[in-house]
């Protein structure tokens, strides 16, 4: 039971990172119909900028989180304006490949800055733990889960109640009609990328609080959030959160139990579990759990 509880907390903290990343993917996809493969780059930039401001420059941690996340968000908005905007109306897939190009270039630069040393972000949680029943829980896990709940609630409120949120939903529904209604669709695109970059940057900051710190391989997290997006459905905001929960818990339980019960699947099988879950879900529901089915007219 202790082990189960431990794995559950692990899974929830993983799920919270995946949820942040998945929300970034979905918000960008919904408003601008672009599947952004540049999220790994924003993750790395957010993590590195926070680390640089907090550790190298010695600024207060909370302030550096805000600044670091802003750097990632601004980079995303810049990419949108410079590279993605000219591609409006081009095939979805060409734009997706373009974002891969952006991702490669950015990550090479960030990797060079990070170097081979593992960086920390100077977070106040460190490796502190406390006991919940019998399970040892890391303080950072709680911080991640709480932060994600807050972010998700804020985003939901933003989309639900604010005028800009309404404009974003309208744009997601129909770009031309929203344009006619006086919504600046270009500004909505920029805002969507800003949000997507910020969410990925925040996830990057959290990923760097772990034992491994911020290293060049942290970007893989963003690729593992893709299954969460797909499981939930590419264009569903609530689906992204549900998908992240499923993927995160599945990964944590596998990490905890697979070595004992299914050793033949090989070491580190938990790392590929997200993809297994993704394929399994898509076989049953080709548009994810909450994705919109494409209307077929003959």
């Amino acid at each position: 039971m202790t082990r189960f509880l431990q794995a559950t907390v692990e899974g929830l903290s993983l799920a919270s990172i995946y949820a942040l990343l998945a929300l970034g993917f979905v918000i960008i996809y919904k408003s601008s119909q672009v599947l952004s493969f540049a999220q790994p780059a924003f993750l790395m930039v957010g993590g590195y900028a926070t680390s640089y401001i907090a550790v190298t420059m010695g600024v207060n941690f909370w302030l550096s989180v805000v600044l670091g996340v802003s750097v990632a968000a601004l980079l995303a908005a810049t990419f949108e304006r410079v590279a993605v905007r000219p591609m409006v109306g081009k095939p979805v897939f060409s734009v997706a490949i373009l974002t891969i190009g952006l991702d490669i270039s950015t990550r090479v630069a960030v990797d060079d800055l990070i170097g081979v040393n593992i960086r920390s972000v100077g977070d106040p949680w460190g490796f502190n733990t406390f006991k919940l029943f019998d399970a040892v829980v890391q303080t950072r896990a709680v911080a991640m889960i709480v932060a994600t709940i807050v972010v998700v609630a804020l985003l939901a409120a933003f989309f639900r109640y604010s005028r800009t949120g309404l404009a974003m939903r309208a744009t997601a529904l129909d770009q031309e009609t929203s344009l006619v209604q006086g919504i600046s669709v270009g500004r909505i695109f920029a805002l969507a990328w800003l949000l997507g970059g910020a969410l990925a940057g925040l996830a990057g900051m959290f990923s760097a609080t772990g034992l491994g710190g911020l290293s060049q391989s942290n970007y893989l997290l963003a690729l593992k959030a893709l299954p969460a997006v797909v499981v939930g459905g590419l264009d569903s905001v609530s689906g992204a959160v549900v998908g992240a929960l499923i993927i995160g818990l599945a990964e944590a339980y596998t990490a905890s139990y697979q070595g004992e019960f299914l050793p033949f699947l090989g070491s580190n099988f938990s790392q590929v579990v997200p993809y297994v879950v993704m394929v399994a879900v898509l076989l049953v529901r080709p548009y994810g759990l909450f994705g919109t089915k494409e209307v077929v007219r003959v």
Partner: protein
Amino acid sequence: MRGRPQLFTSYQSDGAMLRTRVQWLWLALGLALLVWLPFVLERSDLILVATTFVAAVGAIGLNLVTGYAGQVSLGHAFFLAVGAYTGAALSGDPEGSVIGLGLDMVLWLPAAGLVAALVGALVAPIAVRLRGLYLALVTIGLVFLGEHVFRNWRELTGGIGVGREPARLNLAGFHFDTEGEVFGISMIREQKIYFLGLVLLVVMGFMAKNIARSRIGRAFSAIRDRDIAASVMGVDLTRYKVVAFAVSSFYAGVAGSLLFTVTGFVDPTSFSLVLSVLYIAMVVIGGIATISGAIMGAAFVTLLPRFIELGSGSIWFLGEGGGLTTGQLERILFGVLVVVFLIAEPLGLYGIWFRIRNYWKAWPFSY
């Protein structure tokens, strides 16, 4: 139809392999150049060009499924890996530490393609249910799952960091990987591999062109342009998607089995998502749904590092203490080039060639 080469009066001439005499002339000139090239190039460049030929075979395969049939696949690295390991296992040393059967190239080269094609046909039914980006994402999953299997299957792959020897190039007693005389001309190992790649590319290229211009290719294009309309016209979607994946994987398998013979070492981590992205880039940069475009794209992507290496000496910020190594610069430039290409020239290198050709066709009245 002398004087009006673009006027086609029959379906046969419209669907011909190469439609005009000028195209045949270009092909002959190009081939003559490629036959002459290995006798003047240096060894290291020779290897690069030979790798280009093999990569082009793989890119043609990806273009068949992604360009012609419109089924976006980011899983090409996985099929390359299947081919590479099939070839290596069938030809390897039977007494070695990893699986090896010591078979001849006559057997392992087709087998590498066929096994990959079989795997492709097995994966295809999943693809049939999915559309657009969902398919692209599932194929990403395929790459990660495949990498996991190859990392853990040490009897076949040697494991991470150890790797294994790739397929051996023994064709019915003829050794491609040693120096020796061919038709009375003394050739080094690299020259032999070069010609092997060239012959393979020509054969596979014409095969692909045949697929593309025949009934199957037209069915592919119909599916790409509008799958519902295609199925209304009587194109069996499931069947042709399976065929597309199988054929594409066959090409990937053949290319994969030869891709690492030049370096003489194949590691399970080589087949990551990065490799898939490289092949997608070849197709996109070269030109979607053209055979010659895939070849141009493969040449561009494979030779780009060499040109950056040559050019980096003359760029000011790359001198001593410039901060970035050539490898890093190469990857940054690669990313930027993909972006610029997609924004500026969606038809790729083929599109540029197309415009230059049309400019000169109407010269001096080209406006």
